[in-house]
Every structure is written in C-alpha cells, then in structure tokens.
C-alpha cells in the first residue's frame, strides 16, 4: 500500500533504468536537494516523537525500496524504531529490516532483542510477526536463536503461530543447511499437528527440507487426506503434489492387471484406445503370477478426498488434482478430470497456456478422455498465437478416424488465418494427421498440394516441407506431385522449401527422369546466390543424378562441384570434396566408389511426425519441469509404482480420543477446535450423504477416519458389494486380524463399546447361529465356494451384456481377477458382524446399509426392459441397485444395462417423453452419445414411484427409433433400510397396530429353515435392514418407504416345527399387504 503512489506515478513514467529521478521521488522534498540531504530529512522525521511523522518517513522509505532505490544508509535511523509502539510503523520497519539486514548484519543484531521480546508477547499476531521477521533476516550469526524460536513456536498454543513456525523452517534451512536434522524434528512434530491451518505450511516445509523422508508422512497420511478439503487452497496444492509422490511409493499401480484381464476376457471390458498391446502381452506372463489387484483403502481414500477439489476456483488446485488422478487413478476413473481442465480454458491466457501444455501431454496417453471436448479446443482468431499452437497440438492428438473429417474442415479455416505462424503450424498439424491416420492421407496430401499455389510464400514453403515428409512414405504413387513441386523451384524462395524440393527430386529422380536434370541445370545457374542449406541440397541432387543418369548430368555435376569447391562456407567445400571423391572414380579412390550408389540411394526410413509432447509424462504433470520438458532445480522425480506394496500398516495411528457426544458412525470423530460451524456442517453433510461419488462404486463410506479398522472394512464391504473387485479374501482376513488384535487401536470409547458388543455378538453367534452375520456368510457360501459377492454379482449379469464398460461402478472389475477359491470364512463372519455394527452406528445413514448388507446385494434380480428382438438388436435390462439415487433421496435408483447387439453404432440413446402418472417423477439418465456394436452401457436413472407399484412409462429413444417401455417396481424396492434398536422397533410397532398391521401364517419349507436363508430371502424380496432381536426365534427388519418415508416394520416369528408367522406393520396398507405376499412367496417358493 505504501507503494501505491509510486505505482500510479510510474505507470506513465518513462524513466530509464539507471537514471536518478529526484523529481519523482516523494522523499526528495525538492528537485535540488541532494541524496545526502534528502535522507537527512527522513532521518529527522524518524527521530521525531510523532508517530505520524515516523509513519510518513517509513512509507517513503519503503516506497523507495519498492522502486529499487538504495536506502541502506538509513539503516541506523530505521532500526532504532523497531521497538516503536505504533504497530503501523513497526510493520514498515520490519519490511525495511528484511530487505537490508543481510547487508548490515552487525547493525541488524541490534534489533534481535526486540523480536525475542515479541516472541513472548501474549498476542498471537505479534508472536507470529516477530518470528516471521526474525526468520526472514538472513544473518547467519542468529541461526541458533532462530532455531530456538522455531522450536518454541512449533509448540505454541496458537495454530497461527505454529503455521508461522512452519514457514520459518525453509528460510532457516536455506540460510544454514546444517540445521537439517534439527529442523526435521520440528517438521515431524508439526506434521502431527491436527489443524488445517498448519497442514499446508508444514508440508511445504517438508518438501523444501526433506522431501526424501517419505516415512514421516505415513502416520499423517490419513489425517492429511481427511483434512485436505478444509485446508486453504495454496496448502492444498502442496499437499496434493506431495501425496501424489507418496502414493507412488506406497501403493500398487491400479492399472497393473488390466492388460492381463483384457487378454483373458473374451472381449475388452472397456474401449480405452490407448492400450499398448505390445506391453500388455509382455507383461501378461509376469502378471499372471501376481496376486489379484486390490486397491489399498488408503489409495482410494486419497482419490476420493481429492475429487471434490476439481471444483475449486483455484486453477492450481484443479491442476494438482488432475495430475494426481492422471498419475494415480485407475484408467477408468481418470476421465473425470477432463471436464475440470476444459473449464480452466476459460481462465486467463497464462492459465490456458499451462493447462494446454498438460492437456497436450495427457491427450497422447488418454485420448478418449478429451474427445468429448473436442470443440472446446477449436481456435478463435482472437486467441494469442502461443495458445493457438497449443490448441492445434491438442486437436491433432485427438484426431482419429471418426473425427478427422471435422478436424480437417476446421483446419481448413485455420489455413486462411492472417496469423502466419499459426498457418504454418496448421500445415504441420495436417501433416501429422496424414501420417497417423492412413485413411485421410491422400485427402491431406491433395489439400497440401493445393496450398502450393497459395499466394503466401510461407504457406507454400511449409506445405512443401510437409509434403516432402508425406511423400517419403509412398513416393511411387506420387510422381505427379513431385513434378509439380519441381516446377515450384522457379518461384519459391524460402530456403527450407527449396532444399526440400531438391532433396525430393534427388531422392526420387527415377520417378521424374526428365525433369530432374533440368532442375539441376537451373540450380547450377543460380548456385552462387543460394542459401547454404540449398547449396548442400544442390550438391546432393547433383551427386544422385550423376549416379543414376551420368550421361545427362556429368558436366553439370562437375560444374556444381567446382563452384562448391570455392564456396565461402567450409561445410559446402567439405561436402563437395567428399562427394567428388565418392562418386567420381579415380585411381586413388578405391573401394568406396563401388558403394556410392548404395550410400546415396539407400532406402531411407520415412520420418515419423510425432508430438513434441510424447512421453513428457515421465515428468510429474503440472510441474515446472514438465512444462519446460527439462528437469528444474529441486524437482522430485515421480517414482515408479513398487512391484510389491510396502506394509500398509505403517499408516495406522494409535490415538485415543474423548468420546464424541454427537458421534455418528465410524466416521472421523475428530471435530477439532478449528472446525467450527462450517466445516462441522460439512462433515455432517458428508455423513448424511456419503455416496456422492456414486458413479465410482464407492457407495460406501466417504469417510474413513485416521485409522480405525472399520474404515478398512467399510471400504472392502462397500466396494465388494458394488460389484467391484475387492472382496478378495486377504482383505477380510486383514480386518479380522486388525480387529482381534487391536483393542488398543480403536479410536474412541464409543467405538470400543461397539467392539465389545460385537465381540459378544460374535461369541453369541457362534453358539446360537442366530446372528446377522449369518446373512453375509450365507450369501457368500451360496455363491459357491468363492466367498465373493463380486463374483456372484458377475454371474448375475447375463452373458450377453458384459459388465458394462461405461458404468464406472462396475469398472473396478477391471482390476479384478477372480480370487482363488476360498474355503471360507470364519473371517467373513467377523467382517460382516463388523459391518452390521457399523450399520448400527449409522442412524442417519440409510444409504450404507443396502450396500453393506451383502445378502441383499447378492440377490439382485435383473428384469427385462426391452427384449433384443423387440428392440431390434438393442436389449435393455434393469435392476434395482438399492443404492440411494444421487441428487434425490426420494427416488429409487434403477440401474439400466443397455447392450447393443446390432452391428451398427447406436447413437444418442436417451429417455424421452416420460409419461409418469400423477406425482411420479423420473430423472432420466444422461444421454449416451454412442454405443458401439457389441458394447454394453450401464446407466442409472431415478424414479420416484410415489410409494406405489404402478409402472413408470417412458420412451427409450435412439437416433432412429423409439421404444415404449415401462418399469414396474416390486413392492420391496420401494423402500430403503433403516436401522433401529430393538426398543425403538417395539415402540414404533406399538404405534402401528390395528389397520396398519397385516399378519400371515406360513409354513417354512425344508430348505428355508436356517437363519441364513430366512434372512437372505427376506432381504432379497425387500430392501430392508435387519433389526437386532433378543429372541432366538424372531427376525425383525425395518425400512422406510422411499417417497414418503413411512415406516415398514417386518417381524417373522418361528413357531414350533415349520410354522411361522409374518407380521408387517406399516401405515401404507397397500404396501404392507403386497409386501407380505412377496415375502411369503420368497420364503415358501
């Protein structure tokens, strides 16, 4: 602010650099006062008693500094005021000190005691600012004092002071790197800090001082992931970049198994075009030996917690998340970053520049990701040239057989641009498209040939160069073009183009036997006036002609070589001498002469036109090094994924915390002092809605606290139930281990209590076989011996519709090789009980339950929406995924699988003209732009059935056809499970007697008498949650209808023998009646 007058004044000023400008200097007082006097004036003001005068003087001095004027002689006068009471003066004195202390170290020491006093001030702002200045003074002698101050500040009670301590660390380190060990201790301490304020700053210090000490991160990893969203934006960037590196050292590549899978699967699961099949084959063998890939829950945690930051307003944060996904996410999930990156293209041109560089690199590896945004890279005449050229690069990278015609049409307009550099780049781009896409090679070549008659010489020249490269690929077919180009030598002056033409004629002189010698004749005539590069090619042409057609060109060659012999340029003289020896047989030149023809007219490989961004991704994206394509100072290599994952338990933290009053489920219970209203709310919201990333098959918890084993189990539970890979047995075993061996790991008392009950339950269940866990183990055993719901799920999917490649929730399958048959599962029993317990914790959360209740999921039934005959090759099936529909809790999520069995592409698949009955609402799925033949897409739509079993009717449209279809929900799908305690259940049941109670007697068949089967049958018939029950012979379930939230309570009581009684209590009598029917049928069947 002090600089403001200077800012305004100088804007229009035209002062040259070195010239003194007394007239402009507000401190001068008069034009004639000398330097010396001027400073006298200021000194006087500084010595005065009035703060206002001091302030004025300091403002002037700081303004001088800002303008690069030397104010060092004022040091003594200024430093005296360091103890000034006036805070404004003080601040400006600090600014001065930081600038000049290094130059006047002895004097600077005078001020140190003031800072030391400041460090003890009761006001946190003063403590912080004293530390800030102290650490900014680059005076080696005070290093010990700084060290001490930092150490103290690191344990300050104010997080703001601790943050400042973190800032001071790199400063001290740059002053004296011998302090490293001590500083690492402080960093370690601060890394353990739980406040968001400190997190970003300490990670920054870590990156500057000891980026190699990745071990310091282990214990803080989960905390950092969980805090991330609340850290200030600059801190987020630093943390995300560091965690990217961390993840690369600790986790396995999520893409390691895909190649294997792809080979074994009959059909590629997803059409990622950038597959490098060669590599895949090479690796397949080694991969076969590997264990199936299971994503580390911590790896997932990182991906999940960074994703929302793609919505940040800060371009650096968005870029950081984008590079994290690019480097760490499974291929199928990387796509989410494209939209955010494209958004950044609306920002300032500097931001565009950096983003486009990164997009250019990414688009080579993952072209599919940006294809939908092709048009966002179209070029406007108002774009700066450097942006145009980068966009062109991206467009070229994105070109493929399907979009090439659009792109070429676009290029055509670019060629007429007034910006000639851009036109030249466009021509290059056309050349690259022509090399990469064989189909359009001739079109491009023709287009370029037309450009040869362009009025602009630069355009012609560039075209010549590109045509030359293209012709090298198939010269025989294009002698016409070569002839045409030969004629151009008369007009075209650009050296590079002339040289290219000459080379072409020389190389393919057999195709133009008549013209070639004539061109040589003309060139010989103008030889002396040509540029060097052209001369060299004239010699080259002469040599080649001499070898092929010596009759006509002997004399000309002699002539050219003679001219070259006396050329000014030594390269040309050298070349002439060398060539003469080679081609003209003399006595001395022996052996080589025979090979001259072979030497000159050897088959030359066609040049490969490739992007300069190829393979640039070995640099961490978003980094300076990537942008420069050169390693910058201090760049930390992005390590390769390890072959074996290091021990994940290093990230477990043993912390004990006080119980939380409002504790809801096993989510991070910490609501530390800094997370007041807003973040607390955020957290709660998270709990209520943990499925926001529905598309990823992580309907499970979004939260996983620092270290509870629960988090792991949640993870596995949810991911397996969503049909993903992970139900791998090891993980469950791990949970068991963790659970049993680690009472001390539990996070708070509440949870510990949970565990205790759980353990009790477990024992109980072992005795009485009547516990919830039965349900899960049941389902897994029913799914043969593999114990994997995922597999079971897979089996459900009809063979015609391979696991939908578009549906991301299924995509984790790609990382999944079926786990080896597993003789089961005491472990799975444990984990399920754990799951049930968790469920118990989640009073507010209805969404987790269905995902966690594996039996429910194991029994997902698919219904036909459109038969492939009726749909003319398009077959559509749907199932009720029993996951909450994102965006509207009153809707039932219907997962729709569309398979294209035709042999043509189906375009723009969408829902149209829903004709819902009154009150019913339909949320269509996003239009599927195209579905390749044989492909299957899976989408989710939401329907609010209004708690009725009336069918929802709508039309399913393709670009050519409309099909009338309807979805009729079984009554059991109109509800979502809730959890309640036994007492609550009884209480609620008491309210729903009389008309609201429906009872039915039934006889349980032979096969349906075990607890497992009963629970499974009920939960498969209806989307309900189990309620604990004291009695052995009773089963209770509870749910709420999706639309109105009315309670549905189910009780199944076993009488003697095979008799049983089913009771349903619900306000909604119709639902109750139908539900009884459905459940009875399921049980009796």
């Amino acid at each position, binding site marked *: 602010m002090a600089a403001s007058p200077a800012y305004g004044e100088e804007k229009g*000023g035209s002062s040259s650099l070195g010239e003194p400008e007394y007239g402009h200097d507000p401190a001068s007082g008069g034009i004639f006062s000398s330097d010396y006097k001027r400073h006298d004036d200021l000194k006087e003001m500084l010595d005065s008693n009035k703060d206002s005068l001091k302030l004025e003087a300091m403002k002037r001095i700081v303004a001088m500094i800002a303008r690069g004027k030397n104010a060092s002689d004022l040091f003594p006068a200024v430093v005296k005021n360091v103890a000034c009471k006036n805070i404004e003066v003080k601040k400006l004195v600090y600014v001065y000190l930081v600038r000049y202390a290094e130059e006047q170290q002895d004097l600077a020491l005078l001020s140190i005691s003031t800072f030391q006093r400041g460090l003890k001030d009761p006001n946190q702002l003063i403590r912080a600012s004293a530390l800030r200045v102290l650490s900014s003074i680059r005076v080696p002698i005070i290093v010990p004092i700084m060290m001490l101050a930092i150490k103290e500040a690191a344990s300050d009670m104010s997080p703001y002071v601790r943050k400042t301590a973190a800032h001071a660390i790199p400063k001290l380190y740059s002053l004296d790197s011998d302090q490293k060990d001590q500083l690492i201790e402080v960093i370690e301490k601060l890394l353990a800090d739980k406040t968001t304020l400190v997190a970003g700053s300490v990670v920054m210090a870590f990156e500057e001082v000891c980026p190699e000490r990745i071990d310091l991160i282990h214990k803080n990893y989960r905390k950092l992931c969980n805090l991330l969203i609340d850290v200030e934006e600059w801190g987020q960037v630093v943390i995300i970049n560091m965690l990217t590196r961390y993840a690369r050292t600790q986790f396995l590549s999520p893409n390691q198994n895909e190649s294997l899978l792809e080979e074994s699967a009959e059909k590629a699961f997803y059409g990622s075009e950038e597959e490098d099949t060669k590599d895949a084959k090479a690796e397949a063998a080694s991969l076969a030996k590997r264990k199936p890939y299971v994503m580390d829950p911590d790896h997932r945690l990182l991906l999940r917690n960074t994703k929302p930051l793609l919505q940040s307003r800060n371009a650096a944060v968005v870029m950081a998340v984008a590079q994290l996904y690019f480097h760490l996410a499974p291929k199928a999930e990387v796509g989410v970053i494209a939209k955010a990156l494209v958004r950044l293209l609306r920002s300032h041109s500097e931001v565009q520049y950096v983003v486009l560089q990164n997009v250019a690199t990414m688009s080579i590896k993952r072209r599919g990701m940006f294809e939908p945004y092709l048009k966002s890279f179209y070029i*406007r005449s108002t774009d700066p040239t450097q942006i145009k050229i980068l966009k062109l690069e991206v467009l070229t990278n994105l070109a493929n057989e399907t979009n090439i015609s659009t792109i070429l049409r676009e290029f055509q307009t670019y060629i007429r641009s007034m910006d000639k550099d851009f036109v030249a780049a466009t021509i290059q781009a056309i050349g690259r498209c022509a090399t990469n896409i064989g189909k359009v090679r001739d079109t491009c070549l023709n287009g370029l040939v037309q450009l040869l008659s362009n009025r602009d010489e630069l355009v012609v020249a560039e075209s010549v160069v590109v045509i030359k490269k293209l012709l090298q690929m198939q010269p025989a077919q294009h002698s016409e073009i070569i002839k045409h180009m030969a004629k151009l030598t008369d007009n075209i002056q650009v050296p590079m183009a002339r040289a290219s033409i000459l080379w072409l004629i020389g190389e393919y002189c057999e195709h133009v036997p008549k013209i070639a010698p004539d061109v040589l004749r003309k060139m010989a005539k103008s030889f002396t006036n040509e540029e060097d590069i052209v001369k060299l090619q004239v010699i080259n042409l002469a040599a080649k002609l001499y070898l092929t057609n010596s009759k006509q060109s002997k004399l000309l060659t002699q002539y050219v070589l003679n001219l070259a012999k006396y050329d000014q340029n030594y390269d040309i003289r050298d070349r002439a001498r060398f060539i003469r020896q080679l081609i003209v047989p003399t006595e001395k030149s022996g052996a080589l002469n025979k090979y001259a023809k072979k030497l000159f007219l050897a088959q030359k490989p066609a040049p490969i036109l490739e992007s300069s961004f190829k393979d640039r991704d070995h640099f961490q994206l978003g980094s300076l090094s990537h942008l420069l394509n050169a390693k910058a100072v201090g760049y930390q290599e992005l390590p390769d994924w390890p072959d074996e994952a290091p021990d994940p338990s290093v990230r477990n933290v043993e912390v004990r915390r006080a119980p939380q009053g409002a504790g809801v489920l096993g989510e991070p219970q910490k609501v530390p002092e800094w997370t007041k209203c807003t973040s607390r709310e955020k957290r709660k919201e998270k709990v209520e809605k943990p499925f926001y990333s529905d598309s990823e098959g992580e309907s499970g918890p979004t939260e996983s606290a620092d270290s509870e084993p629960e988090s792991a189990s949640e993870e596995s539970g949810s991911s397996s139930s969503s049909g993903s890979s992970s139900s791998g047995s090891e993980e469950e075993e791990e949970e068991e281990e963790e659970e049993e061996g680690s009472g001390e790991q539990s996070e708070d008392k509440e949870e510990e209590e949970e565990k205790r009950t759980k353990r009790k339950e477990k024992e109980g269940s072992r005795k009485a076989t009547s516990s919830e866990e039965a349900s899960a183990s049941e389902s897994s055993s029913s799914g043969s011996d593999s114990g994997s719901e995922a597999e079971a799920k897979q089996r459900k999917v009809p063979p015609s519709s391979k696991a939908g490649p578009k549906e991301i929730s299924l995509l984790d399958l790609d990382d999944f090789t079926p786990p080896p048959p597993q003789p089961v599962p005491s472990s799975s029993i444990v984990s399920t009980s754990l799951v049930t317990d968790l469920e118990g914790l989640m009073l507010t959360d209805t969404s987790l339950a269905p995902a966690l209740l594996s039996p429910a999921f194991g029994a997902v039934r698919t219904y036909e929406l459109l038969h492939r005959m009726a749909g003319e090759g398009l077959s559509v099936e749907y199932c009720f995924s029993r996951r909450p529909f994102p965006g509207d809790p009153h809707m039932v999520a219907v997962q729709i699988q569309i398979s294209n069995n035709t042999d043509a592409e189906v375009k723009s698949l969408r829902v149209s003209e829903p004709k819902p009955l009154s009150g019913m609402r339909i949320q269509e799925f996003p239009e599927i732009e195209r579905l390749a033949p044989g492909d299957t897409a899976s989408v989710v739509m939401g329907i609010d059935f209004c708690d009725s079993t009336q069918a929802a009717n709508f039309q399913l449209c393709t670009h050519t056809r409309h099909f009338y279809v309807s979805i009729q929900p079984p009554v059991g799908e109109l509800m979502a499970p809730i959890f309640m305690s036994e007492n609550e259940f009884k209480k609620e049941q008491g309210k729903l007697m009389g008309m609201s109670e429906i009872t039915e007697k039934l006889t349980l068949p032979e096969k349906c008498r075990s607890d497992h089967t009963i629970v499974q049958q009920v939960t498969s018939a209806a989307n309900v949650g189990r309620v604990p029950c004291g009695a052995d012979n009773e089963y209770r379930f509870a749910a709420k209808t999706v639309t109105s939230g009315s309670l549905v309570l189910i009780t199944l009581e076993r009488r003697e023998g095979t008799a049983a009684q089913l009771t349903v209590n619900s306000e909604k009598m119709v639902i109750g009646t139908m539900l009884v029917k459905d459940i009875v049928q399921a049980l009796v069947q």
Partner: protein
Amino acid sequence: MIHSLFLINASGDIFLEKHWKSVVSRSVCDYFFEAQERASEAENVPPVIPTPHHYLLSVYRHKIFFVAVIQSEVPPLFVIEFLHRVVDTFQDYFGSTNVGDQLPTGQLSVVPWRRTGVKYTNNEAYFDVIEEIDAIIDKSGSTITAEIQGVIDACVKLTGMPDLTLSFMNPRLLDDVSFHPCVRFKRWESERILSFIPPDGNFRLLSYHVSAQNLVAIPVYVKHNISFRDNSSLGRFEITVGPKQTMGKTVEGVMVTSQMPKGVLNMTLTPSQGTHIFDPVTKLLSWDVGKINPQKLPSLKGSVSLQAGTSKPDENPTINLQFKIQQLAISGLKVNRLDMYGEKYKPFKGIKYMTKAGKFQVRT
C-alpha cells in the same frame, strides 16, 4: 517459492520490485525483455521463461507485466494463479475508496473469508446471474460450437454471520461448476443447493458451464457480404445484424469488431445506426451499433479500398460480436429461492439476470 517480483509497465520500465529472499538483481529481467521482443505482441510472451539461474513466470494484465522470479521447481499454475490473485487484490484495493479496512482480517477466523463484526443498517444481498455465450458461427451462419458459461456474482451486505441457501428451479442445467470456498460442497452434491456463509461485499459465488446437451440459443445473427475482387483496388463490404432467438428481449450494447487483412488501405462505410471507426494502422474496424430494432435492422455498407497492385487477400476477416441482453439467462437457469439462517433480521434480496456475448465469432 516466489523469490522476487518485478512489475514492468508498457514502456518496459521496472517500476516496482519486491524481494522475499536475497535480492535478485534487476538484470534478470533482461531475459524477459528478450522474450518480449521475440514475441512481438505482449500476449505472446511465454508465461514461463527459463534463464540460467532462475525461471521467470509472468502474467500480463492492465498493460503491466507481473514477473515472478523462481529458483526451483514449483507448479507453474501455483505462481500464475497467485499473481492473478495479487492483481485482483490490487484492483480491488486501488479501485475502491475505503482503503484500510479492506485488507483480509480473517486469518484467524473459522470463516477466513469473512471478517467478523460486520454491521449494516440496510441489510441487502444481490445476486447477478450473468451468462456468456461463446460461439463460433461459420460462413453460412450455422453454429460450429456454442456453449454457455455463467457466473453468479454477489454483493452481500449483511450484518453478523448470515448463513444463506440459494436454490435453483432447474439445477440440472449446471454441468460443471466451481465454487467460492465458502460454498458447502457436500450440500451441493447431495441436494443441489448452494449453502454458504458469504464473504462480506462483492464476490463470485459460482461459475458454471451449461451442459453441452442443451442446445444453445443464439440471440443474434450476422449477414455479411464481404468481397474483394482481383485486379481491382475496390472491395465490397456489407454487414447486417439482426435478432434471432432473444426470447422477446431487446439486444443492446451491440458492438461489431473485425480485423481487416493487411492489404486494406481504407474503408468508406455508412452505418444505418451507431458509429464506426476504421483504424488504417491496426486495420481494425469497430462499429458501435447500440440497440437492435427488429423493425429496422442495423447495417453497415460501403466499399473497401485495397492497396493497388497487390493481389486480393486470401482470407476474409472474422467478425467479433459483443452484445447484452438484460433480464435473461439464456440457458433458462432460474433461481428458486434465497433463504437466510443464523440472523434474525429480514434482508432485502435481489436477483438480476443478464446474457452477454463471450467469445462470439462469426467466420466469413
């Protein structure tokens, strides 16, 4: 990270410098000046310039280069975004009258974007929904690409710690959004409601992109007839601007600019309304049209004189269009309601809609 910062004005003077670590000599800027010379135009100076010992990262705004000197690896966007924020702050700071209180005081607060103890006698909250249409229209008038980018700018002057929620009638229109940090992301994810404790004063609440699936209404069309004849030093120039899909609203603030080819010496034109200027040095034609009256479409006709002896230009100029439509969000986005919690008084609330041309180009 940032070692030093230099501010360089249009005439190439370093008029301000600031060093956070040891002083870096001004001479480092010579590398920048070299690059500037090579680039010919300011906007083409590479934002990142490597030098033997430093890296220069710069942004160009208000005809001033802000050049940051970096010594080691750092994400370039980190610096660039930061510099832009610095400029934004300067702009706010020097632009507004009440200097002094505006500096951020929230560093210690739980809501760092809002200062505490805010008091107003009139409590008011205004929201401007502003949408820009980016489009490229081809020669024949068909749309090559068109998209809508929108922002909601807010001016909130409310006492205390108000907690606001803003909901839309049709939130599904919003395809891609980015928020001010005050917005609670989860709430948006789950309910499509913007819930936030607002900063005090002016701020951008949200920027959004309207889903590409929706067709973009193009509110204006341009009819053009620009021809240069061979062997003639005269060309014909005629453009007419008219309303297309305006939802019954008036198109105003229309401004047409076009960069003429180098061969154009001068233009003799007559507008049916508004004023026009052709700058024979930069070859830039601009026509300030004003309002479009659908009954009497504005046109600009006349002749172009070309440099004698040269062949006619290959390329036709692109036409850039600016316009404004009040009280219309072209995407159809509508705010449903705005509620305030946490404070007892009744605030005055206002929502305004506007549609503007973004990068709106017509190829000819």
